[in-house]
């Protein structure tokens, strides 16, 4: 299959070999549980050590360094500078307090520039969802055609190979110019970045369906549609799902950057807004939440992949 020669569509999303949910523990049954428990304990220990060191470092070093500033310059810069020239890096305990504040009331709306963190995440998720679904609706049928037709595969391959490595953000100006709506433009950017892995994986999965299964369908005189839906689709489903899983990961990476660019709403915009406010605690919280939501999305697709998986 030409379209897939420079990529590795079957490569699963990267994760540690003993990733918690995957449960690929291959050791003896008895010690597997003990290992999980010990790993969890070790994780907690590492986390505690990291947070402790951070707290300690911030408390002892980060505060006012006390060096004298020119009073006039200090007056010009205002409060923050007067305190010592630098915003102190937040301590984990401060971040925890702030996190509690944000999570306690995630869905408030006080004007366009002050909305709850839940609302911001929901905006981002809605954009990712919309872009991803449109991409799936385009990529899976098109991938089917490419996978079934060597001619189409060869004809479209150059376009795919050139467009695939383009950073989705490079499309943003064109999207803004043509669509003239920042929110729809970010959905378009999500679409363009998540379409390629799904397209290539679908084409690859369809092109590599076992010849003998197709021969079975032919000798049974199953029609084209029936063959596509009952033989090719289930055979290629695991590969397609792998592509979707890669896509959703990329989409979630890209939405933050896209929203930083276009502004308005969304978690990416929120991060940028908090940077302008110099609320570093909020940025740390955003990083944490973005990570958690990304994990959740990946797990959802992982569950879907398990549902369509088959073993020989």
């Amino acid at each position, binding site marked *: 299959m030409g379209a897939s020669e420079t990529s590795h569509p079957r490569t699963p999303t990267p994760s540690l070999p003993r990733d918690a949910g995957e449960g690929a523990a291959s050791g003896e049954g008895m010690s597997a549980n003990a290992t999980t428990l010990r790993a969890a304990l070790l994780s907690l220990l590492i986390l505690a050590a990291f947070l402790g060191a951070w707290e300690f470092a911030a408390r002892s070093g980060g505060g006012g360094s006390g060096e004298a500033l020119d009073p006039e310059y200090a007056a010009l810069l205002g409060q923050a500078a007067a305190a010592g020239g630098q915003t102190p890096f937040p301590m984990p305990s401060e971040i925890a307090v702030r996190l509690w504040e944000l999570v306690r009331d995630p869905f408030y709306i006080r004007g366009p520039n002050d909305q709850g963190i839940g609302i911001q995440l929901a905006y981002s998720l809605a954009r990712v969802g919309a872009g991803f679904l449109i991409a799936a609706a385009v990529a899976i049928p098109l991938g089917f055609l490419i996978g079934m037709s060597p001619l189409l595969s060869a004809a479209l391959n150059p376009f795919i190979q050139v467009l695939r490595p383009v950073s989705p953000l490079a499309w943003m100006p064109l999207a803004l110019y043509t669509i003239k709506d920042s929110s729809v433009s970010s959905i378009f950017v999500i679409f363009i970045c998540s379409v390629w892995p799904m397209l290539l994986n679908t084409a690859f999965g369809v092109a590599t369906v*076992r010849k*003998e*299964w197709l*021969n*079975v369908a*032919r*000798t*049974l*005189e*199953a029609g084209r549609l*029936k063959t596509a839906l*009952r*033989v090719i689709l*289930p*055979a290629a*489903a695991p590969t397609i799902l792998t592509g979707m899983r890669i896509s959703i990961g990329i989409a979630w990476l890209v939405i933050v950057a896209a929203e930083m660019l276009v502004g308005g709403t969304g978690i990416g915009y929120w991060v940028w807004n908090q940077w302008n406010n110099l609320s570093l605690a909020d940025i740390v919280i955003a990083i944490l939440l973005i990570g958690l939501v990304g994990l959740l999305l990946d797990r959802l697709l992982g569950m879907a992949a398990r549902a*369509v998986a*088959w*073993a*020989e």
Partner: protein
Amino acid sequence: MSNAYVSVEGIARRYPGATIFENLWFDVKRGEFVCLVGHSGCGKTTVLNILAGLEAPSDGVVIVDGQEIVGPSLDRAVIFQGHALMPWMSAEQNVAFALSCRHPSWGKTQLREAARAALEKVGLGHAAEKKPAQLSGGMKQRVGIARALAIAPKMLLMDEPFSALDALTRGALQEEVSRLVTEADQTAFMITHDVDEAILLADRILLMTNGPEARLAEVVVNTLPRPRDRASLHHMPGYHELRDHILDFLITRSRTLAGAPPAGWDPKLVPEVRPAQPQITPPPRAAA
């Protein structure tokens, strides 16, 4: 050739620069079991694929039931060498899929029941819910047989169906196929390497010379009486002559006869031999 169900008329398979076989003529009569024996590379599988309609011959035609083959048909079911079951479907769903192609109007329950019945016939009623991955090699091939027979084909095509199985399972399945085919008076065409398998199942055994440019060298008529079973097959009078004849062919004559045919060779009149009937062998013409 009036009562022939299948009539193969001068088919050939050529690739640029190589002829695998050409000018192949034979027929399969209704209710007859024909085995094709030969070494790898003589184009056996291609012959079967042409009969199935999966491949088109480079030359010649195959007439089935008075009509030229143009593509695959539900009337000619194939049992594949690898079981070729869909791994995402249970045994029952695999059979039901075939049935749904034969009977598009059937509802879900009707398909289920018919699939169950087909699996019961091959002794797999208990495994209907299992996925192929949970079945042993022999069970998978049984499902493949059930799938092929469920659609009540006019002809059964088998491409070394048991070659991937261990000897015990193979024996059991050979008897099973022998029973099912006899019960249904099924017309069948099978490719095999296994001489005993051919003797057990076939009415006629077609012997092909080595490729390239393979040809049908001889038709061995299996005169051993039915029913035959594996336990007593080798005690039947004539069995050893038959077996030795085929083995001799496979070991030496398939090689020495390969290449250009002898002068006056008529591909439409391949010599028939009856090694299991020693009383009438030399010369066969005298007995008639």
